[in-house]
């Protein structure tokens, strides 16, 4: 890509959200607003390489979008009616639309951006539709970038966005900020989309997957935007805290050959302590707003326990078990229970952990889940019951599809003392 195209792309990433929000505010249709903004981008790609980057790129883009909007209006009108007062009526409407769009950029308020986020994450859409629209409308990613990040063909991604926009239009989703109970529900939907984007990046396994790893930064950026837009919503601070604290370990999570390194074996000097501090601040804010017991805030509090420990031995496992107890109360899940069992094993010894695991053995949701035998195997190793441990780890190896996990488990099998039983 040429330098000027990279610059245009950068301008787009900075300006597109407010541009689309401004147009949507006037024409009340997010899908159409996005198309007009795209048309403006195409015009920029044609003209800026010749004329240079304009002094006020956002205003330039808005003017280009306005021209297209008036074109559409004229064409629509011409098709609808052919006679009568059409000329004067059309002129009047054009003038109105033109003025409204001219003023739209100056009038874009934070609420417009917030409305755009709420619409992109609207519950009427499929989860993958929400993710794609959010990255497109709020993060300014191109279709190609989103497609690469989610490992799908660009065409598939294009259809996904097309369908999402059509669904929004068919459902007549209004360009409004929800209130009361509806606001809570919609915030939840937004947060789940942001966290899904974060996790897509977080589970990417190598530097070659740079596009996916960058999703973590996009999610963090969204989180930081959201705490500015809705500073009173404690769970937003909770989610931001969770993401900052998890991302602070990025450099320590992979070895030189890309192999996964588990939390307790990580080189803690590789953690990003400035990021940990940001996470701690966000968590404090969630607590101050009375949201310390929220789902994301509790998960963040667990991550914070690890972040505070300079060495694995310093970890406050008692606190972690209590936090898992609280988490299980508000969102019971076998996976959370499994994590709690690990913490119990660390706090009260491997036998206690094993006893906790036994209560989960019949859990249908965990059948076939490789972490169950893998954790059992770990605890059995600690108890010196190597023969049983070997069986469990072999079971885990057979269950996992992930090659990195498989390597990790095979390594554990090899390191186990052979003679004992």
């Amino acid at each position: 890509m040429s330098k000027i195209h990279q610059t245009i792309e950068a301008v787009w990433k900075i300006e597109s959200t407010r541009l689309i929000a401004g147009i949507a505010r006037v024409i009340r249709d997010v899908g159409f607003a996005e198309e007009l903004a795209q048309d403006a981008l195409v015009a920029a790609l044609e003209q800026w390489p010749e004329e240079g980057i304009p002094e006020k790129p956002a205003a330039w883009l808005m003017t280009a979008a306005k021209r297209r909007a008036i074109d559409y209006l004229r064409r629509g009108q011409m098709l609808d009616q052919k006679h009568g007062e059409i000329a004067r009526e059309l002129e009047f409407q054009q003038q109105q639309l033109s003025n409204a769009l001219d003023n739209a950029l100056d009038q874009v308020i934070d609420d417009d951006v917030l409305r755009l986020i709420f619409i992109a994450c609207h519950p009427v859409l499929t989860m993958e539709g929400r993710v794609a629209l959010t990255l497109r409308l709020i993060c300014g990613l191109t279709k190609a970038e989103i497609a690469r990040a989610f490992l799908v063909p660009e065409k598939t991604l294009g259809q996904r966005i097309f369908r999402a926009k059509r669904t929004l239009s068919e459902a007549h989703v209004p360009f409004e900020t929800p209130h009361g109970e509806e606001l809570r529900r919609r915030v939840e939907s937004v947060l789940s989309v942001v966290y899904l984007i974060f996790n897509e990046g977080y589970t990417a396994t190598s530097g070659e997957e740079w596009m996916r790893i960058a999703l973590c930064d996009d999610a963090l950026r969204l989180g930081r935007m959201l705490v500015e837009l809705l500073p009173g919503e404690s769970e937003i601070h909770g989610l931001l805290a969770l993401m900052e604290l998890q991302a602070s370990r990025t450099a320590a999570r992979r070895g030189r050959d890309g192999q996964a390194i588990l939390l307790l074996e990580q080189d803690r000097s590789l953690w990003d302590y400035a990021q940990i501090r940001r996470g701690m601040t966000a968590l404090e804010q969630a607590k101050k707003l009375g949201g310390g017991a929220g789902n994301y805030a509790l998960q963040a509090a667990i991550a914070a326990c690890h972040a505070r420990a300079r060495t694995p031995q310093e970890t406050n496992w008692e606190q972690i078990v209590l936090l898992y107890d609280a988490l299980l109360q508000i969102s019971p899940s076998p996976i959370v229970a499994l994590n709690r069992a690990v913490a119990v094993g660390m706090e009260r010894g491997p036998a206690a952990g094993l006893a906790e695991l036994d209560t989960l053995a019949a859990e249908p949701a965990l059948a076939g889940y490789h972490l169950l035998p893998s954790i059992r195997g770990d605890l059995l190793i600690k108890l010196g019951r190597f023969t049983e441990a070997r069986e469990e780890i072999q079971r885990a190896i057979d269950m996992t599809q992930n090659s990195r996990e498989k390597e990790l488990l095979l390594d554990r099998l090899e390191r186990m003392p052979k003679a004992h039983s």
Partner: protein
Amino acid sequence: MRFMMIVIPKGYESAAPNAVPSAEAVAKMMEYNRSLQKAGVLLALDGLLPPSTGARISYTDGKATVTDGPFAEAKEVVGGYWIIQVRSREEAIEWARRAPMANNEIIEVRQIQEMSDFPEDVQKAAEGFENLTNTSAVKI
């Protein structure tokens, strides 16, 4: 990617120790800072007191010499910085273009080095580098 946007304000090299910017300039700068924050790209920012309150320590043959500010020979001095997280060098430059700077002022945009930017042999030689940078981290 993280970038530092370094502000080099003209005349700051000889500014009086008690020099303060005008309320108007500060208000404009705050508006810009808010736009960085609202876009979710701002990680940190600070302004520095004039060089006349600082000191330079120069090193010759293992000997350190201290010179109190202002520094007669300095033509460009740092006045402050932002650290931002963006997707590309171009995006950092575009953010810098939007800063409300006065005539002849400069912003230098520099990417923050990540250990993963180094080739493997250099990474090996730098082993323990994070230990050094993180010992100063605030206790949490």
